[in-house]
């Protein structure tokens, strides 16, 4: 049976574009512009979903994304919000969380056993005896949850946009639109967003016929205005510091940073609470109006309107106009209404019962809809129905209007202090944060002409805040009866009078929760889970507060509200995550590494070759690493070191500055020399080390480790700010490329491109010179980290690849081999050098790592000095040593981080270990007890298999080479 009405002047559907789709196996027709729910309703389909806990049949409640009665899946996507998602041709939809279809859901038995599942039931049972809990837990887990996730859903990375404006306005109802126009007319830029498909707010359904020309005029003016950007189908997901508001559209998120914000987001209609108020066919008055005016759908055939304000009267008239047989308007207020609408209703022969209520709704067969309503007298002060004289009316629908709750989530998030206006029966802003303004219903202004004015008032205040001088606008305080009822709740001994439709929470749940001690709003929320469902309390929080206030016999303002947090509507992970950028840094020689089989691994953001496996090479990674390392020992090797942090420190106080930051001395350092610079934190823990090259009296070139470069630069900047010395810093990390050539043939290779005398006597370790290599200005250092003979070259990144290639070519006759980070680790281990961060941890001090020569305790200050002074007086807890495994060692080779075991207890751990092909021994570095620091000491390592492997402390593996 079709419920589609004849053409409505205000409708959003395009009758020229009909199509069909499938719901629960049934073919359904729709027009473009329909939502899934409106199309289903137009086809006479009333059961759109099953509730979360009791699996009760549910239909349209708000048709506004303020409830989740109608959640669907198309097999791929899940938890689709049918009330607001535009329906598309050929969709194949089913309701989520049912077994055997939405009409015959096999889980509906839970509704019958609901007394077994009182509020918080899962806290009260299943835990004794303990061994049965996993069984129950499994059952409960499976019953909970809504839709099923499809693991084949594609990753859809949505792009993000940024936008800026003078004033961002949330909500394109009459208040927001009026505000937008006022602001734009003063030459300021406006972005105005609305979650609906069309602007106009409540005027698109309430008073839609009367106000249509006023709205059209306003929209026309908005559209004409260059300063206004109107975005519909977009919601403001939350408020973040400094007026940052993400606007969510289907296509992605726009992050709007506004100078001022006007929240004109309106109000959510709130349901009166009575038995079976959740049956399909029982809906908000505003939902009935939306059906009629937006989608030209008759909400039901025959029904009643239950109201506690004057909105219900207008809804009743709208229903009559739509051809609904309205049996009665039931007004819960003792005095009823003084609205002239009463006379209109009387003209239409609609009975009006004041001081009455819907006591309960009688369900039709299988509880799939409404068959009757039971009406009786109601004492609104006592909130009690007088059941002596009940009237029963056969019907198939109920429209409900009991009041409103402000859509104030963004105001709360921005830090607005709200107060409860008892005349209005609504929370309204009392104290707004700087640059944030509110207008319209969310500000407690309900009368149509005043809402437009309130928009202009908020606009004027926003513009004055932004430095314009604009005349203020006066808005009349709300007069007459309240749009919201103080307590629209009807008790019923059998319950099922729902407050939260997401979570199936009834009045008695609140009463019981309060009795058990959960009688403040936050505890009540957490115990009953009211407002914790996907609609986040939009239709339930206000009634929950009113019920708790009544239970506690306290005024509503004493109860307060729970904290509103992002998001306003649940927001897709793909939208929030965006395109998921992962930054990587490539060195100047990156392409060469790739072409030559570099096995790239991440080093922080940088990509570095761990080893090289060129095409046609049949080595394993380990074999390749060994070969690369052997090349360095016997011929020559070259490594790309461009990832090292590189910082130029200059100014008259450059040396003094370094002395303040680093542990060593630099003031008397000679130009043309470098010194090792070790950095500690304030607790005296080793953090980083690098080289400080003095290039001129007032200019140092500083290197840091790859991983710490950003951190060290940040810390140097901070120190430079604090210390007041005359020093400047330049981060050259990306600007410079660097490489190390190491091995017996290193000097000879470089000499082909350089005039520097590289003999050890002329250019010993510790030397640095600014020179030219292959006609490129560069820095040349003699180092001894991976081999006794090694040179580090730093040069402009642009020339990196060219110089590297020339060196490679010239080195070919010498057997020059590119080596990766794995070989480098092995090489430095063979030299007996520890790596900070690898061999040390977050607690290691320099004494434990034998780094005393790098520390000048006699300086007046350096970072960490005070801690070292204290630590120096204490006995060592552990010490870092080089070790070698016995040459006849059997069993599984220990791994890094295997423990050193002494008398069955933890005595240290292995920090580095590797087989050295050059030494033909397994060598490593370990933390051992201090008494084991002498060469020759023996200790045991427990390998992964749990066996103890003996090791011997050595001074340095280089000695093994000499003795071999």
């Amino acid at each position, binding site marked *: 049976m079709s419920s589609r009405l004849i053409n409505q002047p205000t409708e959003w559907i395009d009758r020229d574009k009909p199509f069909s789709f499938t719901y629960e196996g049934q073919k359904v027709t729709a027009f473009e512009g329909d939502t899934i729910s409106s199309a289903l309703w137009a086809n006479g389909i009333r059961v759109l979903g099953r509730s979360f806990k009791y699996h009760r049949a549910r239909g349209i409640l708000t048709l506004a994304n303020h409830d989740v009665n109608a959640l669907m899946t198309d097999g791929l996507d899940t938890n689709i919000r049918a009330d607001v998602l535009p329906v598309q041709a050929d969709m194949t939809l089913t309701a989520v969380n049912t077994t055997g279809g939405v009409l015959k859901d096999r889980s509906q038995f839970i509704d019958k056993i609901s007394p077994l599942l009182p509020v918080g039931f899962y806290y009260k049972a299943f835990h004794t005896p303990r061994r049965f809990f996993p069984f129950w837990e499994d059952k409960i887990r499976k019953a909970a949850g809504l839709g099923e996730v499809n693991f084949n*859903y594609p990753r859809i990375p949505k792009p993000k946009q940024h936008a800026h404006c003078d004033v961002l306005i949330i909500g394109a109802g009459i208040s927001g639109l009026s505000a937008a126009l006022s602001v734009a007319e003063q030459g300021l830029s406006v972005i105005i967003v609305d979650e609906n498909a069309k602007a106009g707010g409540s005027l698109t359904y309430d008073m839609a016929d009367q106000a249509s020309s006023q709205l059209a005029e306003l929209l026309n003016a908005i559209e004409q205005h260059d300063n206004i950007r109107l975005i519909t189908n977009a919601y403001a997901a939350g408020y973040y510091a400094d007026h940052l508001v993400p606007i969510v559209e289907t296509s992605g998120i726009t992050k709007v940073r506004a100078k001022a914000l006007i929240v004109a987001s309106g109000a959510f209609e709130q349901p009166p609470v009575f038995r079976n108020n959740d049956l399909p066919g029982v809906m908000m008055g505003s939902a009935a109006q939306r059906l009629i005016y937006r989608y030209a759908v008759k909400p039901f055939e025959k029904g009643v309107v239950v109201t506690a304000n004057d909105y219900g009267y207008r809804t009743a008239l709208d229903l009559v106009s739509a051809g609904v047989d309205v049996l009665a308007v039931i007004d819960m207020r003792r005095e009823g209404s003084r609205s002239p609408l009463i006379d209109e209703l009387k003209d239409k022969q609609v009975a009006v019962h004041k001081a009455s209520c819907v006591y309960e709704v009688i369900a039709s067969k299988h509880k799939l809809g409404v068959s009757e309503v039971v009406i009786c007298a109601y004492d609104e002060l006592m909130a009690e129905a007088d059941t002596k004289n009940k009237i029963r009316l056969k019907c198939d629908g109920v429209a409900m209007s009991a009041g409103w709750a402000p859509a104030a989530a963004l105001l709360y998030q921005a830090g607005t202090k709200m107060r409860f206006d008892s005349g209005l029966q609504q929370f309204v802003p009392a104290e707004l944060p700087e640059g944030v303004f509110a207008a319209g219903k969310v500000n407690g202004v309900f009368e149509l002409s005043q809402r437009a004015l309130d928009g202009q008032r908020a606009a004027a205040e926003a513009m004055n805040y932004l430095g314009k001088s604009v005349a203020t606008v006066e808005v009349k305080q709300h007069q007459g009866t309240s749009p919201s009822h103080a307590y629209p709740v009807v008790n019923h001994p059998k319950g099922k009078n729902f407050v939260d439709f997401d979570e199936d929470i009834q009045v008695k749940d609140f009463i019981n929760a309060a009795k058990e001690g959960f009688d403040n709003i936050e505890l009540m929320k957490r115990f009953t889970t009211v407002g914790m469902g996907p609609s986040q309390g939009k239709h339930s929080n206000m009634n929950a507060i009113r019920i708790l206030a009544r239970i506690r016999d306290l005024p509503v303002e004493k109860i307060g509200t729970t904290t509103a947090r992002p998001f306003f509507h649940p927001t897709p992970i793909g939208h929030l995550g965006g395109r998921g950028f992962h930054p990587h840094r490539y060195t100047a020689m990156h392409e060469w590494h790739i072409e030559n089989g570099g096995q790239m691994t991440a080093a922080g953001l940088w990509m570095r070759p761990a080893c090289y496996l060129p095409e046609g090479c049949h080595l394993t990674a380990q074999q390749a690493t060994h070969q690369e390392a052997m090349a360095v020992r016997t011929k020559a090797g070259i490594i790309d070191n461009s990832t090292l942090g590189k910082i130029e420190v200059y100014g008259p106080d450059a040396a003094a500055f370094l002395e303040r930051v680093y542990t060593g001395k630099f003031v008397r350092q000679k130009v043309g020399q470098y010194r090792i610079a070790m950095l500690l934190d304030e607790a005296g823990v080793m953090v980083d080390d690098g080289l400080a090259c003095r290039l001129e009296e007032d200019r140092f070139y500083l290197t840091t480790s790859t991983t710490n470069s950003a951190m060290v630069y940040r810390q140097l900047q901070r120190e430079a700010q604090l210390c007041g010395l005359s020093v400047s810093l330049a981060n050259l990390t990306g600007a410079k490329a660097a490489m190390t050539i190491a091995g017996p043939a290193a000097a000879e290779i470089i000499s082909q491109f350089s005039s520097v005398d590289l003999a050890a006597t002329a250019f010993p370790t510790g030397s640095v010179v600014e020179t030219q290599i292959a006609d490129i200005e560069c820095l040349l250092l003699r180092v001894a980290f991976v081999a006794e003979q090694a040179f580090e070259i730093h040069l402009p990144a642009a020339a990196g690849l060219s110089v590297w290639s020339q060196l490679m070519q010239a080195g070919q006759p010498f057997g020059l081999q590119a080596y990766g980070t794995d070989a480098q680790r092995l090489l430095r281990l063979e030299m007996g050098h520890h790596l900070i961060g690898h061999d040390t941890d977050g607690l290691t001090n320099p004494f434990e790592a034998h780094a005393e020569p790098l520390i000048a305790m006699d300086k007046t200050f350096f970072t960490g000095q005070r801690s070292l002074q204290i630590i120096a007086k204490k006995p060592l807890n552990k010490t870092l040593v080089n070790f070698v495994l016995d040459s006849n060692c059997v069993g599984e080779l220990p791994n890094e981080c295997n423990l050193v075991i002494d008398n069955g207890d933890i005595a240290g751990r292995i920090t580095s270990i590797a087989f050295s092909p050059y030494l033909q021994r397994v060598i490593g570095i370990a933390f051992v007890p201090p008494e084991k620091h002498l060469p020759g000491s023996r200790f045991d390592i427990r390998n992964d298999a749990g066996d103890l492997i003996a090791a011997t402390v050595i001074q340095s593996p280089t000695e093994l080479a000499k003795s071999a």
Partner: protein
Amino acid sequence: MPLRLLKYAISREHPAPRFFRDCVEPKKTYDVVIIGGGGHGLAAAYYLAKDYGITNVAVLEKGYIGGGNTGRNTTIIRSNYLTPEGVKFYDASVKIYEGLSEELDLNLFYSNRGHFTLAHTESAMRTMRWRAEVNKHVGVESYVVGPDEISKACPQLDISCSGQAPIIGALYHAPGSVARHDGVAWGYARGADQFGVEIFQNTEVTRIDVKGGKVCGVQTNNGYISTNKVLSAVAGFTPRITQMVDLQTPIVIHPLQACVTEPMKPWLDTILVSGSLHVYVSQSSRGELVMGSSLDPYEMHSTRSSLDFVEGLTSHITDMFPFLSNVKVVRQWAGMADLTPDFAPIMGKTPIEGFYLDAGWGTWGFKATPISGKTMAETIARDMAPDLIKSFRLSRFEDYELTGEKGAASVGH
């Protein structure tokens, strides 16, 4: 259906009495005043009464019980720490948790799911092995596993992480569990209340009086209380309390944020943590994915949410689970984490006689709730800290006996 539920069903109203009395006005004096009605404070009150018969105790909570970090964490319980001291301490906590639902007669939904700390880099693998070795040594079931074993436990996980940060292994921790955080606070509150402890909500301490180096009373917005023993168990508010007694601690406050998705049918059975991607995630019994990330990089004494956090987290979660693109985040929130330089807590006595500190919990206080309550109760009752928490003493920062747990923080902080 368990009999208990039948009992509830038959009675028209719940027979359950109040969990805790509605205490309005504090008495003039108490033997012990506990500042902070979160899990830790309430557990300490419970064990003071139960283990030591000290029942003349007031718990003062400035908001509502369990409303601080107890109600803001992602409910993960584990003991796979890095130092033997840490492992032993948290293991003791896990042991109490396992029987806590029965002890408190409240179903805390203590759910043993297994916990994987994913490693995407060799250096992360080293730390995993280190933790596994120490754990095994102390008798805690943790071991290093490869990608195959991870896939078996969670077939939906993209081991390559969208090609961005392939997972090379993980630290598997069998005892890893989740529990209902609110329930823990409520259960301890009920237990303490039954012993006679008085719990005052909406009661904020504004001053602590110290005379001659001894605590003698606290001023609240709800009257003055004389007492010789005060326990501060206020996590992110610790600096505000220690300032009242002029006590220096190295604690700094960073926000820690989290979020949940809409409920969906269960598919994620384990708890997953990725240090490199800064993600931890589990699926609650309601069906929501509960997700958290690393600490915010700045100090701030506030619980406001940031967009950055949720953008970064969701981007990384789709690296792990690409099919979550259209699953929706319902809610985000923040807590204030009280961090120490060595990432281990501060527990025990202080230089002020009668002022006890339970703080520095950073991102891991929930899992320590039972054991911190028990050990702090012992510390207060005997005026001496038990061995289990000696390495967490405040004075370690003066004598440089730090307990380095940075490597065991859930994600890289």
